[in-house]
């Protein structure tokens, strides 16, 4: 045991306490989070440069070979340098750096695994970072704080700590804050990495810095909260139970539909690029957590425990504000109500203003479709990409968001498939059932096949034809034959003839139950 209490010296006020920090790296042993957790005494005693904080520096041999007894006021600059501040050991050694590294890995893993789903969208990045902080960071901060809080009890140095000069609150904070800072730093490092990885593919908006600041403060508060629980509850499963409790609270509160969900730590309910958190929401949310942590710390350590009521009142005030404001904590993203358009195509192609950089890519993906529709009348004016149903004369652009499906890192993943989906948006898009007349359905299929040929769909059709042939399904085979004939007639038309025919066809293409006589035949 490196913590040694040496009898004698200058009396109780100057009891020399040698700590791991004083011993230097050569005297330490072991690796891992449990090694060299030798800082409580140094912290609790408040040893800084030796005697000035109530402890005497170790006596060493003088130049003449005789032992020199250091006295107050005798400290040289060299001696001060040789006795590092005890907080340095709390920062650099023991459990805190390991916990920070662990949290860094745990946060980075899902961010990397789900990179397809957030790179290119500030909103999606903010949402996933908040979710990761709530589901990984908060439970782990509570548990790690709980583990750190039980440190003196595990070492059986709680009595020694309580006998030192510094106040209990200072002792608690000196042990808890370095861990809180490490966990916060791990979170902020992942945030910085995610923002840097998102920036090259995002073309509008910007990071929600207040959300990340609020989450960082909340993580620090959770660490202190866990620390107080770990110090107060002498139970070997305190730390894992705190983690489980964190998961349960996040799950129980965060997934509710009521406004109580805003009380879940770090869980900013920002959904993609549709909403933005109002500026004070993350900070008030952090105040809710910080108030609880401060109240717990004061209740455990303050001389006048009634002072804990002050931060508790602040926390409750923040909670009331969060719950009463409810959906007002989020505001509409003004960009989500606008779109940018390319009017050189038929129909025009518009994408939401939250992804203006996607316009050339989408236009390129639809170039085959729009090229075939050049000069055709009765088409929708534009493909629109707003969070509403298309107006009359508009067609819905196939979804670009959520990211990770049609779009990954600024690229359309399967342009042919995307064009095929866009073509379907032109032909009876709102109809739940196909028209009753077989001739109309056959015509629709032939038009879609010509507008946006899609290899996957063609393979599926080939498979269906083969299967119908094997099963002897003559009705189905006749259907496919009629489709092939209609498609052949459409492809064999001249350009002008086809343009004219398509103009007549699209005049009724939005109707769900057109009369067969109104739809031109092939």
């Amino acid at each position, binding site marked *: *045991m*490196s*913590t040694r209490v040496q009898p004698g010296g200058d009396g109780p006020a100057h009891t020399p306490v040698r700590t*791991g920090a004083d011993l230097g790296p050569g005297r330490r042993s*072991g690796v*891992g*989070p*449990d*090694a*060299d*957790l*030798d800082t409580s005494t140094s912290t609790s005693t408040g040893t800084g440069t030796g005697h000035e904080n109530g402890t005497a520096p170790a006596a060493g041999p003088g130049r003449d070979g005789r032992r020199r007894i250091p006295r107050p006021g005798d400290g040289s600059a060299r001696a001060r340098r040789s006795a590092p501040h005890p907080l340095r050991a709390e920062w650099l050694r023991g459990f805190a750096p390991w*916990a920070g590294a*662990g*949290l860094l*890995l*745990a*946060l980075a*893993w*899902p961010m990397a*695994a*789900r990179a*397809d*789903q957030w790179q290119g969208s500030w909103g999606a990045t903010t949402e996933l970072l908040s*979710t*990761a902080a709530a*589901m*990984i960071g908060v*439970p*782990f901060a509570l*548990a*790690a704080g709980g*583990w750190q809080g039980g*440190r003196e009890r*595990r*070492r*059986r140095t709680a009595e020694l700590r309580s006998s030192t000069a510094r106040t209990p609150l200072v002792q608690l904070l000196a042990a808890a804050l370095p861990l809180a800072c490490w966990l916060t730093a791990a979170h902020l490092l992942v945030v910085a990495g995610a923002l840097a990885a998102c920036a090259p593919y995002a073309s509008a908006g910007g990071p929600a810095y207040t959300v990340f600041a609020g989450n960082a403060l909340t993580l620090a508060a959770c660490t202190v909260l866990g620390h107080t629980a770990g110090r107060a509850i002498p139970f*070997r*499963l305190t*730390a*894992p*139970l705190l*983690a*489980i409790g964190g*998961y*349960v609270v996040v*799950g129980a509160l965060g997934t509710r539909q009521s406004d109580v969900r805003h009380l879940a730590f770090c869980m900013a309910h920002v959904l993609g690029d549709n909403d933005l958190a109002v500026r004070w929401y993350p900070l008030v949310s952090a105040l809710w957590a910080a108030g609880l942590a401060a109240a717990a710390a004061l209740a455990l350590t303050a001389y006048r425990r009634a002072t804990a009521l002050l931060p508790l009142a602040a926390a409750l005030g923040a909670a009331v504000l969060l719950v009463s404001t409810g959906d007002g904590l989020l505001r509409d993203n003004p960009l989500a109500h606008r779109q940018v358009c390319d009017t050189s195509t038929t129909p025009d192609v518009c994408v939401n203003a939250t992804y203006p950089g996607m316009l050339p890519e989408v236009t390129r993906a639809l170039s085959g479709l729009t090229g075939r529709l050049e000069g055709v009348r009765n088409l929708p004016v534009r493909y629109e990409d707003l969070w509403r149903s298309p107006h009359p004369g508009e067609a819905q652009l196939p979804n670009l968001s959520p990211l*990770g499906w049609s779009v990954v890192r600024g690229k359309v993943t399967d342009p042919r498939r995307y064009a095929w989906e866009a073509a379907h948006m032109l032909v009876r898009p709102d109809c739940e059932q196909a028209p009753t007349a077989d001739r109309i359905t056959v015509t629709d299929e032939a038009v879609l096949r010509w507008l946006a040929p899609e290899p996957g769909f063609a393979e599926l059709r080939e498979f269906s034809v083969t299967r119908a042939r094997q099963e002897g399904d003559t009705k189905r085979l006749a259907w496919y034959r009629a489709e092939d004939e209609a498609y052949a007639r459409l492809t064999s038309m001249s350009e002008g003839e086809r343009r004219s025919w398509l103009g007549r066809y699209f005049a009724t293409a939005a109707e769900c139950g057109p009369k067969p006589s109104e739809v031109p035949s092939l």
Partner: protein
Amino acid sequence: MNTRQSSLPARSAPGHRFRSLALYSRSRGIPTALAALVCAALLTAWTASRPDAYLDPYRRVPLVALAPLLAAAATGASLHAYTRELDDTAVRRWWPRRLAHLLVLSVLASALLALAVPGHAQEFGAVAMVRNTLGAIGVTAGGAVLVGARLSWMPTTLYFSAVYLSAASPRVNNATVVSWLVQPGPQHGAWAAGLALFVTGTALCAARGARPEGPRV
């Protein structure tokens, strides 16, 4: 613990064997671990029997991840010995006892938690619960070797959290080996991963024992 062979008849008596077992259990906090397992099973049964979780299997995903986490934390904490140096001086080998310790708690935890999940066994039911419990205990046992028994909850907590959150990615979710703990049930890759973790962690812990924590933990 004095484990020297002796010819005294009292040593081989059933009472002595029971007393040894009771002493071992008490020294390892087995009653606390058992109580935690029972609590985990009761809470799981209560949550899983709610109508939404009973009807929608995907509502049970958090359950089949959280309950094994608690069971594994209790099992890992029970590996802690306050007298490790004294234990190491014993004549008898410790690995059979450590192995039996882990296996008994694993079987007990798996059985209790599997019984606590109602509904279809193959859709985030008993099958997934057994697999996840074994995998979690394996990770925790391995963690106990690396970072000590009382801190063995940490690697498991971080690992489960990271896998749980990353499983929303279709690419990760389709990889049954990587996202083994959020697979619905009988997927071979998920079972292989869970069992591999259990066998590796248990074997490592049985052979090496939990990392000595020393007086400065």
